[in-house]
């Protein structure tokens, strides 16, 4: 079996370039960024003098300067953005999938319409929804406000993403951004649920019908529980997108006045590449990484372990 043995080595050698590249560009660079976040690098020129956790303390300090205030708002914004974005995508995606599963005429057309935003860039989405939710002024109304004015729905006129109103730590200016993000990604959950629904054998529904179950009952007690693993996957994939969101918000609203629509991705980009505060940018990105890792690492372990068992 010397041939097989040689082939095993070739197999490893074929994979080696990718292993090395990932080792450097993912793990090496994360380590390097961590080092920057622990350094005093604040300016164009690299400075790796040790600062310990100073930058992190600065971001989380209670009496805090501008950075701490901004980062505190960013974390809350990320929390509420993620929460409502996930609720919308999962709720609406499931609803549309269940509807489309009812032997609908023109299903293909509906599916195409709900899913096409997935093929666009966040920049495109940001530009269009910026136009739609631009409030204008009371005398020169723009976007949806102009539409509501025409329809006589004065109560719905609002300052949208320029609003500085908030309910507790939830900045209402985030609502238009959440809608834009959900517009782009609801099709994803719909496609996942639809694939799941199509995978459920018809005999199972038949059997339930024979036993006297109603259509609604079949969904509640048989089909929805079977879709739970899909919900988990969707929450993880969409959740990690939302935790690191940047392009959409950066294009659509930017950080907003008083950071009402700011997110860590924007803070990191601006403070690093426009402000040259490298250690701070690095610290923000490491915190973002930790937030994503908390969600992704258990998921990867879980889904790959399940695969091995199968």
């Amino acid at each position: 079996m010397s041939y097989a043995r040689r082939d095993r080595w070739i197999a490893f050698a074929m994979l080696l370039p990718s292993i090395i590249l990932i080792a450097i560009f993912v793990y090496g660079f994360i380590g390097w960024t961590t080092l920057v976040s622990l350094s005093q690098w604040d300016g164009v020129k690299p400075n790796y003098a040790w600062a310990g956790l100073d930058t992190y303390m600065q971001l989380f300090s209670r009496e805090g300067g501008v950075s701490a205030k901004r980062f505190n708002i960013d974390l809350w914004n990320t929390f509420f953005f993620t929460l409502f974005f996930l609720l919308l995508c999962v709720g609406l995606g499931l609803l549309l999938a269940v509807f489309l599963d009812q032997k609908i005429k023109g299903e293909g057309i509906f599916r195409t319409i709900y899913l096409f935003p997935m093929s666009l860039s966040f920049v495109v989405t940001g530009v269009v929804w910026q136009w739609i939710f631009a409030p204008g002024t009371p005398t020169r109304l723009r976007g949806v406000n102009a539409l509501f004015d025409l329809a006589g729905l004065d109560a719905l006129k609002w300052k949208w993403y320029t609003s500085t109103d908030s309910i507790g730590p939830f900045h209402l200016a985030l609502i238009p951004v959440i809608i834009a993000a959900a517009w782009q990604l609801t099709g994803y959950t719909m496609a996942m649920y639809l694939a799941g629904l199509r995978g459920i054998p018809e005999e199972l529904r038949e059997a339930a019908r024979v036993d006297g179950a109603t259509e609604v009952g079949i969904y509640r007690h048989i089909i929805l529980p079977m879709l739970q693993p899909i919900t988990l996957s969707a929450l993880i994939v969409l959740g990690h997108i939302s935790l690191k969101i940047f392009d959409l918000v950066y294009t659509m609203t930017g950080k907003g006045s008083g950071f009402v629509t700011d997110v860590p991705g924007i803070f990191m980009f601006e403070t690093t590449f426009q402000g040259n505060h490298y250690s701070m940018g690095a610290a923000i990105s490491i915190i973002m990484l930790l937030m994503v890792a908390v969600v992704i690492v258990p998921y990867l372990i879980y889904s790959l372990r399940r695969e091995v068992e199968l």
Partner: protein
Amino acid sequence: MTTRALDAQLAVQRKAARAFKIDPLRLGIYLLLVLFAILFLVPVYVLISSSLKSFTEVQDLSRMWSPPSGLYLESFKAAWSGLSEKGLRGLRGNLLNSVYLTVPATLLSSMLGSLNGYVLSKWRFRGANLIFPLMLFGMFIPYQSTLIPLTQTLSAIGLGGTLWGLILVHVIYGIPITTLIFRNYYAEVPTDLVEAAQIDGAGILGIYWRVLFPLSLPGFVVVIIWQFTNIWNEFLFAVSILQKPELQPITVALRNLAGSQIKEWNMVMAGTVISALPTLLIYIILGRFFIRGLLAGSVKG
């Protein structure tokens, strides 16, 4: 009329009545589906109608939502070639940059993914169970956590601020997803085929070339569409690595155009249409494969 004939006639009538009776639940479902379809298409309407208006027409706020008064194509011309009198750059060069960036990066990362997927599905060596998830983790990380070393490294190896640098970046960070899709794809190929070729004396490369590669076309279509869409649409790497406006891909140029002080909305919308069209067309024509890539991204294929 015999009772049997009467029965039969009644049955036919009942059937016809049932066919015509509108089930309110189904009607409600159709109405909601249509309503959501209209809502989903609002941005498309905004894009198309605004891009076909002149600057004076697009400035008229009372007619913001009205369809264009005619087919005014000057906005597309302006978005394509720029408005030098207003200091606005056209997107033509940036669209080409996107092509120069996306095509090689897509092809290279697909090839790499195919080879990796082959090894990981058919030649599992010791440690592969550890290497694969470690690789996969790379597609979920916020790329912000690699940006500072990345820009430093690219400058150090002479690729800072160049399209080649960005191509390299997309090839590397594309490894996890392309490997994943191909690994799941090749897992479906019966191992008997591989063993039969092995008995015939084929080595690892021969088996790939003679057995797996000829079966790979659907896999390549999925991966190429997925990578093309992602790389074409990508923004963060591009904006961090490429500072020169004439080198930037179209996403970055579009965001700069949309962020300029005096907004020529008709021109911005025309530019948006231009930058969205390539991936949108691919989606409309090859949607089936697009969805497969989409579903593969959730780890379990």
